[in-house]
């Protein structure tokens, strides 16, 4: 079990009001799963992702990642987890505007213990994985939205994280670019990457193996994705192959 959330609550106190952004979430994710989280606005998806990404701490409950209890970790240890185990992709890309693509991709290496050797090589390899090797020297403002998000994905992948977390990665993109990103995610999943994404789009969720619906800070439903002939065909084929291997 890669991820085990037990009784996770996140409570915000705004003035006199108490907001239960997460209200008792239990969730387990295995290695090499591709999970999509859906749900109405304000249902707690981002809050959950931030906790999964160790960017935020739950008010109650425990989060076990790859056998480690994150709730007992201090700031430095959490930083190490974020650096080594987690790749986070943001809806708004969050690239450093003055850095070239390759420098943006290399940013996490700055904070890795073995990040100094072959830094540029690794960053270029990561860019190649998202098919952007030819844009290495470009700055974010010289890239399209889809390219920016691919740079961000390359950055998330550079330390070979256990999980790739993406909070509405296609939220700022048009449908054609969305498809590019989806293809990339499916391909990464096929290569063995564990992925959890948050999305509002049914097409996007259809690429995943498993869809979780959230409502009012709780998990409303959690089921395997129904076959979708268009977008899901690639994934479906893969899932079949997986289950055959399992048998």
């Amino acid at each position, binding site marked *: 079990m890669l991820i085990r959330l037990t009784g996770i609550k996140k409570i915000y106190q705004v003035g006199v009001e108490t907001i239960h952004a997460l209200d008792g979430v239990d969730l387990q994710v295995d290695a090499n799963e591709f999970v999509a989280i859906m749900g109405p606005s304000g249902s707690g998806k981002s809050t959950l992702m931030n906790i999964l*990404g160790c960017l935020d701490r739950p008010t109650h409950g425990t989060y076990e990642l790859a056998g480690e209890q994150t709730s007992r970790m201090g700031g430095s240890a959490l930083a190490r987890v974020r650096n080594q185990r987690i790749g986070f992709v943001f809806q708004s890309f969050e690239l450093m505007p003055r850095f070239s693509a390759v420098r943006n991709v290399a940013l996490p290496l700055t904070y*890795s213990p073995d990040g100094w050797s072959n830094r540029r090589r690794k960053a270029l390899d990561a860019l190649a994985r998202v098919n952007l090797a030819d844009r290495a020297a470009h700055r974010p403002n010289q890239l399209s939205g889809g390219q920016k998000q691919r740079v961000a994905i390359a950055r998330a992948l550079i330390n070979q994280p256990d999980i790739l977390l993406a909070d509405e990665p296609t939220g700022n993109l048009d449908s054609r670019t969305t498809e590019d990103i989806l293809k990339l995610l499916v391909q990464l999943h096929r290569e063995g990457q564990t992925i959890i994404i948050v999305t509002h789009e049914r097409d996007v969720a259809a690429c995943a193996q498993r869809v979780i619906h959230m409502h009012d800070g709780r998990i409303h439903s959690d089921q395997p994705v129904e076959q979708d002939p268009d977008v899901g065909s690639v994934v479906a084929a893969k899932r079949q192959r997986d289950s055959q291997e399992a048998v």
Partner: protein
Amino acid sequence: MSLLRTPFYLARFLLQSILLALGQIWMNKTRSVLTTTGIVIGVAAVTAVIAALTGLRSNILGEFEALGTNKLYIIPYRPDTGRFQHASGRTLRFTPDQFDGLVEHCPSVAGFTLLADAADKVIRGDRSIDGARITGIQPAWHEIENRTVTLGRPFSLLDEQRAAYVCLINPETRDQLRLDRDCNGQSIYIGNRRFLIVGVVEPAVQSALFLNQGEGAEVFVPFRTHWNVWQSRLIAIAASQSPDVSDDARAEVRFFLRQTRELKPDDPDTFRIEVIEQYLRQFDRVAATITMVAGAIVGVSLLVGGVGIMNIMLVSVSERTREIGLRKAVGARPAAILFQFLIEAVTLCSLGGLLGIAGGWALTLLMAVLPGAQLDKAYIPLWAIAVAFGFSALVGVFFGMFPAFKAAGLDPIEALRHE
């Protein structure tokens, strides 16, 4: 292995942080320049003052080399080691008989006088001078100090042997006591003793550099008289035959005095023979005061500069909140963020320090060509550069600390949400 690699990572991290900081500073050129102005001015001022004092000092050295190095000041001294290190001042002080026969035994010494100083009240009729300088001298003094008797006569050997109550005065004393121009044969009271004036000594040569020794009222009496009446500590002044043999003279006097003061071969000297150091020390005391005052002024300007640095760093942290959030999200430890901002503050201050040193250097070049300022030898010593630079960096550390801690303590999620 990891032990070996850690310093390497640190060095690279440091280098990258510095490059990043330089990039950041370059991006905000105007702001950075304005921020460091306080530090630039402070450092420029203090390096210029130090350069001026250094130049003045070497001028003085030069002046002495030209005209005064044949004078040897012989002064009692408590050594740091050996059996005299805890000896009392009374044990260590000179007695006149220790110098008997010095001139005969030291061929490089041309002249020699014992000298004792005291301050006392000098009275003539209804006029008096409080705290006039009363100096006991021997006949050779006039030659050594180059101050001859213009009216009347110097002391005779007889005056010395008898410890006679005779005196020489300088024109200042004469004027203050309203004595006649030629006042030989008149008498004055020093304390309650009556002294006969036998002559007037010419005033000391005015030096451009020193508060003059011969300023104020001076009365000279035979050394033995002084010894009997005031019993103050005595020193000796010897003049070598020429500045060239000054080192020989010093060695001879030392050898002679070690014998008369009955020092064993392994005892350290219980006296010092100084050529010009005494004056230099006097100058150094003044210089230290000036440096301290300048230092205080610079301290204030560094403080003001430091507050400016802190302010700009706080602005920088607030502007780059999202960047900090991102860096934390990809795994920057709080310490790494702290370090990055601290390095930036230190880099900023160090650049200010460098600019200040450059400014001080320019001022130094300027004062060197200033006519009549005696500063042609002014230069900034290396230690001053190091100290100025070090202090600027320290200001960076001190005032960068708070903004850096603020950055390091930011919550990643809140930082990323920042607009």
